């Protein structure tokens, strides 16, 4: 049984790209093999959430998403969001302002999940924020300041400031 390389066309951070992949490659592997190092590789089995990306606007775990299945889909990572999306850039700043970052390994995933929350739900409701980012693990901060940052931006959205 020989598995042949396949080409997959997708949009990554607003840019049309073609990746040459193996059928068993995950989206995480394909992204990192193409220099998207802001997408972190953690547990690799869908537990920790540091590899979270937006796939067609929804936060998903790229380590358990098949790259081949992303043909024609749109992917945004932490870095791309920060450079292209006002709301995401604001959330990144809020993480700094709230002191949400310690070692930083989980942060790209939290930013993407946070952007997913703000764009898809957006209420400044701490319980809902917690539920939305429950797929992301942080071993340093104790989560409070991360929730603070997402809530801060949600409140700004509610007041119409962004």
């Amino acid at each position, binding site marked *: 049984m020989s*598995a042949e390389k*396949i080409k997959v066309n997708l949009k990554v951070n607003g840019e049309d790209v073609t990746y040459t992949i193996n059928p*068993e490659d995950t989206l995480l592997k394909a992204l990192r093999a193409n220099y998207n190092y802001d997408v972190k590789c953690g547990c690799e*089995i869908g537990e920790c959430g540091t590899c979270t990306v937006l796939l067609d606007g929804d936060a*998903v*775990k790229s380590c358990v998403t098949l790259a081949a299945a992303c043909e024609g889909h749109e992917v945004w990572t932490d870095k791309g969001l920060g450079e292209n999306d006002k709301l995401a850039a604001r959330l990144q700043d809020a993480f700094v302002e709230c002191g949400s970052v310690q070692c930083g390994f989980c942060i790209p995933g939290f930013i993407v999940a946070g952007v997913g929350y703000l764009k898809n739900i957006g209420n400044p409701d701490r319980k809902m924020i917690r539920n939305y980012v429950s*797929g992301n693990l942080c071993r340093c901060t104790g989560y409070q300041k991360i929730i603070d940052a997402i809530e801060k931006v949600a409140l700004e959205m509610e007041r119409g400031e962004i």
Partner: protein
Amino acid sequence: MGAMNTKVIEAEYDYVKPASLDEALDILAEKENVKIYAGGTDLLVKLKMGADLGMDIMMDINGIEDLYGVDKTADGGLRIGAAEKIWNLETNADVIAMYPILSEAMHLMASVSVRNMATIGGNFCNASPVADTVGPCMCYGACVELKSKKGVRTVDATEFFLKPGVTVMEADEILTAIILPAPEENTGAAFTKMARVRPDIAKVSISCVIKRDGDAIKDCRMAMGSVAPKPLFLGDISAELAGKKMSAALIEETAQKVHDFVKPIGDHGTTAEYRKEMAHLIAKEILEKAWENSGGELA
């Protein structure tokens, strides 16, 4: 595969993406060792953990139109496309209004980023004894719709599962939809799962739907997760309640029967003893809650 797991998928396989259901059924009929990729949240984890699935072809069913949609059926029930994502279903107004504990169970599954990927058909076909969507579906009287080149058949959800990872599905079949009957008046439901933290896989779970007739039980259906080699429908114990007048004593008696009936195992999740003790406790709790939700009062 040594002690160290590098999370590299060791299996080699071909990847195919049929454009239509007919094409998917052709592939299933003609090829051997085909596994279906829907959400991937179970399949890819299994592959990464080195499970030998005997898979030569991975068939990606995402985007096949016939597998999507949440539609009212002619008899007032709901037909849920198998490839619908859990998140889309738990937030669907019809699902919330008509089958509240199905929505609740989904809300308690894993995390949003996983529920954005995982599908209801996948939760059934993965056939884990823990599967959270299955208990509520069994209690609401759901059927699964299976299609192959030979035709369509529907199987009662309570008869779909055989053992861990194994269902009554033939190799050439695909699960196309979950079909739920119309909800009835004076019906109450409850769902509970025990887990260390909320997004965890359940140590033990229970679902219950009660149809009430005045102060008596017209019909009761209970199902449990993680207490048997498959999602367990408590058909006989539930059926014995039909026609009986509801009381605290009846609930206690039934909870004891559930406790005596289940034969859980101990694993990495928890011990067999814990599961058995909890079975008694949560059976009592959900019978009370489902009765209350049906509008009944406990004497």
